[in-house]
């Protein structure tokens, strides 16, 4: 039993465990237990009842997602598990910690997910820049093969599984699960229409589950120690632990495994050591670049999906970006807008043509020459690029920091427009 199931093997001062060390530390026990004693349906029920939610950002219940995969006699024989390891959300570096710190944990989680939906091929879609993770995962896959944990008839169970590592050419949109599938097929990384969902028609038109790295790393613990243990890890309504990161002008930026339900203040002050000397907290994005700003008054909220949601933002990836009082909020949001604009795939009109316009306006704010009417254009785009209006969630995600910035930092925008550019640059 552990209260840090995700990071208990991780010590970044040394190399990650090889398969021998990993097994000695209890690794792959869940797979052995599962193959010997559990039917795929048992694992599905277990994960459903554990309350595990997707850790990629959307927070969708994992068991529910899996349950849409057609199973049984008449289901397609070919199915796929795809790991979304294309971690590109601004401010997010949690999956990297898992893959670089304990690569076998991901493989163990993948085996559980693949067994549950009876997929015989699993892909890891890895961010191209994660060179260290690539090397470590390649090695871990080879080790697992050599020990008979991958390949045909694993541990005499009759279950086959191959894991294929794919390194991405590098687009933010590949983190969108259907764009990821198109990219994996060698096509343009445009998202697909949903429905049909990947569980029905995914990779190469076959039933497919796409899960985030961290989501999968939760699975071995759940299989090993059960639902009660897992639910007990969380302090609030949500079950389990969460990797939480902090970046910005804090004394000790980094990433830690915390029980869900931990107060934000504890993350910011105890783990990240509080603000650097001479800086005050102005606001923060609680879950990466595509979440709404929260303010210092929200520090006592807990890290729960619903709690953060009620405050008007999202827990999303759980990796916080801190805005201090000596950094221009307009510049920060403008930087994000430039990023999102550049990362639009170009498929749907509002995102493709709306984000560059927003980007141009922010550049004008920065240089001077911003117009009061620009504020109306920005406000119009909040709805125009909002949920349901665009093809996928990229543009609505971009509107989260923009909309909250327009609410919270109105005066800063005013200063830019009427002061001839960014006051911090003058």
């Amino acid at each position: 039993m552990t209260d840090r199931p995700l990071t208990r093997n991780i010590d970044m001062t040394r190399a990650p465990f090889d398969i021998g060390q990993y097994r000695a530390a209890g690794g792959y026990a869940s797979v052995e237990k599962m193959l010997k004693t559990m039917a795929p349906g048992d694992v599905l029920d277990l994960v459903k009842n554990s309350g595990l939610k997707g850790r990629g950002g959307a927070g969708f219940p994992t068991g529910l997602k899996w349950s849409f995969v057609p199973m049984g006699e008449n289901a397609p024989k070919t199915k796929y598990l795809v790991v979304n390891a294309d971690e590109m959300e601004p401010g997010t570096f949690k999956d990297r910690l898992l893959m670089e710190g304990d690569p076998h944990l991901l493989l163990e989680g993948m085996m559980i997910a693949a067994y549950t939906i009876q997929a015989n091929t699993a892909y890891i879609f890895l961010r191209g820049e994660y060179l260290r993770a690539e090397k470590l995962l390649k090695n871990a896959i080879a080790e697992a093969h050599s020990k008979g944990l991958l390949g045909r008839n694993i541990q005499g169970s009759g279950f086959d599984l191959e894991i294929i590592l794919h390194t991405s050419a590098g687009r933010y949109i590949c983190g969108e699960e259907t764009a990821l599938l198109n990219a994996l097929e060698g096509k343009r990384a445009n998202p697909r229409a949903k429905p049909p969902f990947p569980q029905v028609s995914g990779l190469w038109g076959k039933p497919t589950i796409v899960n985030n790295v961290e989501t999968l790393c939760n699975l071995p613990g759940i299989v090993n120690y059960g639902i009660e243990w897992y639910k007990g890890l969380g302090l609030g309504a949500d079950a389990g632990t969460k990797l939480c990161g902090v970046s910005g002008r804090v004394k000790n930026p980094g990433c830690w495994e915390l029980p869900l339900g931990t107060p934000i203040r504890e993350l910011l002050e105890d783990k990240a050591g509080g603000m650097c000397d001479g800086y005050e907290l102005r606001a923060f994005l609680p879950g990466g670049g595509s979440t709404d700003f929260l303010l210092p008054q929200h520090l006592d909220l807990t890290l729960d999906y619903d709690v953060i949601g009620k405050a008007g933002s999202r827990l999303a990836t759980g990796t916080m970006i801190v805005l201090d009082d000596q950094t221009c909020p307009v510049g920060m949001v403008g930087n994000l807008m430039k990023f999102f604009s550049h990362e639009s795939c170009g498929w749907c009109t509002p995102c493709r043509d709306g984000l560059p316009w927003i980007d141009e306006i922010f550049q004008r704010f920065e240089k001077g020459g911003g117009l009061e009417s620009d504020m109306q254009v920005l406000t119009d785009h909040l709805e125009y690029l909002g949920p349901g209006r665009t093809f996928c969630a990229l543009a609505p995600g971009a509107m989260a920091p923009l909309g909250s910035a327009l609410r919270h930092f109105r005066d800063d925008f005013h200063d830019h427009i009427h002061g001839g550019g960014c006051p911090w640059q003058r």
Partner: protein
Amino acid sequence: MAKITVDGIIYEVNPQNNLLQECLSHGLDLPYFCWHPCMGSVGACRQCAVKQYRNADDKTGVVVMSCMTPASDGAIISIEDPQAVKMRSNVIESLMISHPHDCPVCEEGGECHLQDMTQMSGHNYRRYDFKKVTHRNQNLGPFINHEMNRCIACYRCVRYYDDYAGGTDLAALGSHHHVYFGRQEEGTLENEFSGNLVEVCPTGVFTDKTFSEHYTRKWDLQTAPSICTGCGAGCNTTPGERYGTLRRIVNRYHHDLNGYFLCDRGRFGYGYNSSDRRITEASIVSVHDDEKGVRKTLTTHDAQRQFDAMTAGDVVGIGSPRASLESNLALRARVGVKNFYAGFSAEQQQCSQAVIAINREQGLHCPDIRTLEQADCVLVVNEDLTNTSPRFALALRQAVRNRASQLAADARIPLWQDAAVRELAQNELSPLFILSPQGTRLDDVATDTFLGTTASQIGLLGEIAAAIAGSGSGLAQQIATALLNAKHPSIVSGISAGSVELIQATANVARALRQRRPDLAAVDICFALPEDNTMGLALLMEEGGGTLEQALQRLASGNADAAIVLENDLTLRATPDAIDAAISGTPTLVVIDQIHNAFNVRARLLLPCTSFAEQNGTLVNYEGRAQSSHQVFPADAALRPGYEWLTPIDPLSSALTTSETILYHSAQTLPAFAGAEKLLPARTGIAALMKSPRQSHRYSGRTAMSANLNVHEKKQTTDRESAMSFSMEGLPLQKDASLLSAAWAPAWNSNQAISKFQDEINGELKQGCKGAHLLQRSLPPQSPVSVSTNNTSNVYFIDHIFGGDELSAMAPAIAARSVGAYLCVGEAEAKRLGLQQHGRAQISSGSYSAELPVLIRQRIAPGAIGIYCGGEINRHAFANGVSISAVAEDGNVLARSHQMFDELVINDSVNHRAMGRG
């Protein structure tokens, strides 16, 4: 039927469709870009946003894309909801951000879907004040202009070109707002259906380059419903004219045939109309001693007088498969049935007669092109459809996707979800088997292509028929099984091989299938025909008359005073010796034709006739469907339709003076044409005594067009032949569109206006004639007949879409894509004969010989010899086998570049899309 509510009004809908399609079907104006009636929805442009409500109590609603939302029973939506209106105005505002607003110099202007939709969405004030994104344009070859700066990134071009037409060299490149639609490298668009980009693109990115050379706004074009002359498929077109020259051809929707798309030969092949090889005046070769042999011009009046005088005696008349039914009928009436001969080559006539018999055989059915698209297993025999009857090939590219439709139905994905259906099915295709002497352009979607000479194809067809009947193995069994298991099997061939045996062997497969598949009402089998009226002439020959061989023999033996040859280059139809003998035995040779060619320059009297755009005429397509092709504009006074030159000498003795009376008379008197009178428009109700205008209500300059010649306003030309007028006045399209000169509706200036004339999206036209079927299934079902392979040769003749057709080959744009004659052999054959790639070879047969460049292909039947005639070689001279020898290189530069030559064989390294091959 389901019901939906749109802004408080209840409509009956098909729940299998999406909301956008249903709204448009009911005549509602809802703007869209990425959706296309026959390419479905992908949800990219977001222009068709509407508000949808959960139920009657829901007053908030949510904005949805109508193209991506099913028209489910009980759906409640609003087009006029302010949020939906705002969304649509936001979309059009951002689409226009980088658009150059160059409508005054843009060739799309006035028929631009983007203009229409911008108006409809109410965008008229520009807020965006930053720099526009600009692009570099590409030279895409002789057919298509590229102006990327006008692009609104609807993705229709690549969805059409790549997904629908099977092209590989047009792509969406780049990303975010720099996305670019073009080729990886500048160069000619390879696909044979590229011209449809002009109509698929909602703005002026892809425009018709041939039209650019003599551009006119849509509203200034005089137009009329016409039929394509490129092959025997009978695609419907709308040619447009201004100042006496034909300016362009666009698609005219026909539900059963071409739908929304034409091939590039049909669209760009019109240029011969204005060719400098056009025969513009009558001429006669003098026989007087002082000027013997000199060709002298005649006035029309003198020409007619001379013609009547020369042809008063014992006259042979030779018809033409590229002349209208009316002209052929007039010739037959003029010379009498005993003196009337077919203008086919001998094997063409035998083959087309065999095809007619099969088209009359009960238990078989000749599919229209739309039905071909629905086939879920297709066997193509010998015909290189992309090059002979291209619209069939485009249809078969859709047919192989019926596997995808089936998978989607099983997965409950609606078929209009275009991208989702493609993602689901990936490379799974319905079975398509091709038998051919060489690789074809459809091989990339074929389950298997059998490369064989005519003889070995006949052999395999026999095995397939036997396998269907119960005993087979190998490929024959595979094909038989696929045909037996299909819901809608279809067999497609043609007459290119000139082999009746091959036609019978093909029909035997259909007959065998009919015997084993009593569940099918009839087995689909059709034969592509080469010329626009091949079927019409073949039917006429059923009513009496002789063969071309008989005509040539009779002329050679001096048993006629004169010969009248109608619109026919006979050097393409018989051996040079036979033609020479006939000409020297003919005291007076009269030829009526449009274009100077190798044959008609030898005529004593040469009479210029109108082209398809300058005359009314009836053409009968491969199905036996007779269709009217209307005169678009009055020709120069020196030109007359063939039937007018051929008017009986005493016009009072006959009423056969106009195209309508000739057609009506033949329908009454010739059993083969019974029912053809249905083509004549019935003028009742509001249309009684009114004519349909050929000019739009915006037609400009009417009073000034000839002011440079005479300031007095010219009287409008009277059309004494048809129900159309050369005028703006007459029946408004909105009242009666039975003669649809051009698709136009209020607020819909582009070709997308066609939806206003369909009974529903993709449905039949509400008015208008689909043609008259002349062939009845009057012959009893046949059992498979025995077929011999004795008469077949290892020589086959290659067809090319560009250059392979006599008239369109003379269009400059087509000529720019054409190659000259060449010899094609396989690697083994080349080695045996000592031939080099791009080298030269001497071919000879009897007294004939020719020197040709050599193309060595990988994908060619063993032992087969391919010859492309390219208008240079007489096919009949070499049909019965050739001997080949290499010619030493003398350093002469080939007429065409090697590169162009090599482009012909891009399918040698075919990348098969079909799964489970081999």
